């Protein structure tokens, strides 16, 4: 491990080099081991204060960051949009400045506005960790996806990774695309043309709207959750149509190579983007992703939190 880490913030994978990404993955190995000890705690961030600032709500990611912080012996505060003074009209910048005045060392931010973590990272001395900003990036999710692939298949370069779903609005997809392409994987995006426009080819990936053609030579299939809120209704006709054309059904799963990994960031819509049995099947590594997510977040908090205070 020759690279040293020098960033106080983790804003996304777009600006990281392949070396930096690999360094995070290698550091994750050490922290994954902590989860197997009897006392799952190390003092690396003892006395540091971590604020989970989730302007956009999430239980899973927030819990994962919270646990990661506890395992590093940090103190944790959780703030959500509804409980914060943002509802009283305070600007994001003022809210964050107030947190800094309380000596928060690390701010984990999830926000619906792309660029919000960068906005705060430029203005605060504290570390800012992006837990998802609009449709832009979700770096720790992509890092845990990369870690899981590396753990199960031994490498990333040369593998064919297929990402299926609502790519246009997905920060998980973007971070994964940046990371996978940098580490030498071949990436194919699959979904309706309204949600997977050809424009994405300029990012160094392939685009396909025919899932059955792509599945047989996939090494990894990463399924994104399909949302059908009001604003998506113009993009595709409905859940039934989506599942018929793009769902990973039992039948479609038979097209996969036996060692192909099935991944999903969660929460799963059983019966929509993935059939129930497939989600629980042997090729699914969905639960490993959760375990690895905790280790990845410990690594990220350790690396960024160590820089901010240095």
């Amino acid at each position, binding site marked *: 491990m020759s690279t040293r880490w020098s960033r106080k913030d983790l804003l996304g994978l777009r600006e990281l080099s392949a070396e930096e990404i690999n360094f995070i993955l290698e550091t994750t190995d050490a922290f994954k081991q902590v989860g197997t000890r009897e006392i799952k705690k190390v003092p690396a961030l003892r006395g540091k204060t971590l604020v989970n600032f989730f302007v956009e709500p999430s239980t899973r990611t927030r819990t994962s960051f919270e646990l990661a912080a506890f395992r590093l012996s940090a103190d944790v505060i959780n703030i959500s949009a509804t409980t914060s003074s943002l509802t009283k009209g305070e*600007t994001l910048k003022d809210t964050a400045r107030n947190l800094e005045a309380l000596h928060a060392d690390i701010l984990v931010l999830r926000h619906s506005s792309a*660029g919000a973590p960068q*906005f705060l990272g430029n203005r605060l001395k504290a570390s800012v960790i992006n837990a998802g900003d*609009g449709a*832009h990036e979700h770096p720790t999710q992509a890092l845990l996806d990369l870690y899981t692939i590396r753990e199960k298949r031994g490498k990333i370069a040369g593998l064919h990774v297929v990402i299926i779903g609502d790519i*246009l609005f*997905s920060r998980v997809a973007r971070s994964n695309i940046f990371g996978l392409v940098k580490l030498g994987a071949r990436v194919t995006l699959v979904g309706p043309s309204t949600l997977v426009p050809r*424009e994405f080819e300029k*990012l160094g990936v392939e685009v396909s709207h025919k899932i059955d053609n792509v599945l047989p030579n996939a090494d990894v299939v990463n399924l994104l959750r399909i949302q059908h809120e009001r604003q998506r209704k113009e993009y595709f006709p409905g859940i039934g149509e989506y599942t018929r054309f793009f769902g990973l059904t039992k039948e479609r799963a038979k097209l996969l190579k036996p060692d192909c990994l099935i991944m999903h960031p969660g929460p799963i819509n059983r019966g929509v983007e993935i059939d129930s049995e497939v989600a629980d099947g042997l090729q699914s590594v969905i639960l490993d992703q959760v375990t690895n997510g905790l280790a990845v977040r410990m690594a990220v908090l350790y690396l960024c939190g160590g820089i901010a205070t240095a």
Partner: protein
Amino acid sequence: MSAIIIRNGRVIDPANRRDKLADLVIVDGRIAEKSAIRDPQSAIEEIDASGLIVAPGLIDMHVHLREPGFGHKETIESGARAAAAGGFTTIVCMPNTSPVADTPSTIAWIKERAAAAACVNVLPTGAISKNISGEELSPIGSLAQAGVVAITDDGHCIQNNELMRRAVEYARMVGVPVLDHCQDYNLVGNGVVHEGYWSTLLGLPGWPAAGEEATVMRNILLAELCDHPIHCQHVSTAGSVRLLREARGRGVKITGEVCPHHIALTDEAIQNFNTNYKMNPPLRARADVDALLEGIADGTLSILASDHAPHADFEKEVEFDAAPFGIIGLETELGLFLDLLVHKQRKIDIARLIQMYTVDPARLLKINAGTLSIGAPADVTLIDPDLEWTVKIDKFESASRNSPFDGWKLKGRAVRTIVGGKTVWKL
């Protein structure tokens, strides 16, 4: 009698097809012949314009002065000072104020305020629809009587084509041109940046070029149908230029204007989420910039303007999605256009640039400005076309600071602004 002689400058007066080294004489606030100076002994102010261009006072027909209602961003007084510092003697202000400029009384308020506090000529526009809501026509006839030089819903755009048609027909009767901010709300959705590579990469909602072009097309059809001039504000896409070129070739009364940021920057600039690069219409791709340059060069685009849109620091210093659109422009536009169009890209010569800031807007708006004809009001701009300078926003006259051009090194700027024979600003 007051007299001024501006000596040894290159007088460029496109309205009178004049471009030569000459002296310019101003007597009692109007352009005059030398013979008009009756008393040679009286105090004559002499201005040495060697090496400078002597042009008719420049006109910026797209400015947001924010009053009434948004004085924390800019006032008529500070906006006028900013205009003077940019070399402009006449500015046309947009009606998206609070209240909206959709009644004669609001127009009267603006005119009074301008007369009392503005050091340059301020010409108001009136809203096309009541409250700029795009549903009912505002009292366009009364607004014209109150003195608006054009009607526009700028900031917004009438989506109902039938309503827009009736507005254009009515404007024809009354004799005011129609200016339009071309945006199809459905195609654009909540787009904040140009729909293209960068919006895809960054996951920001895209503002497709077709969203502007659909409305440009609508306006071309209506200009033809109603036989009345419609002016497309801040044209930004290659497709819009193509449509305008074709229509103008057939003689349709359609014009287009360009703002400097749409040729100085591309959508690549938004990648750090700096809200000083967020404007409407958004910064576009390289191909669009090239098409705008061609459109300027071949005359398809005939007017230059700033879309000066001041916002307070606390309003712009927020997350990208939440920030209001727009940047200030009065004090940088001439420098940017001189630097980019005349010096760097060599698309037009300086005489044409002056024409696009004088004759062409004056003709569209039917105002008595933009010329150095004998008897015309002495609105004069002196320009040093080769002066190299660095943009320093903290020295600006404008009340706001939302500009992406701080620190830019430009070549060419106004050095003196004269309104009605009185110097209102000099470098």
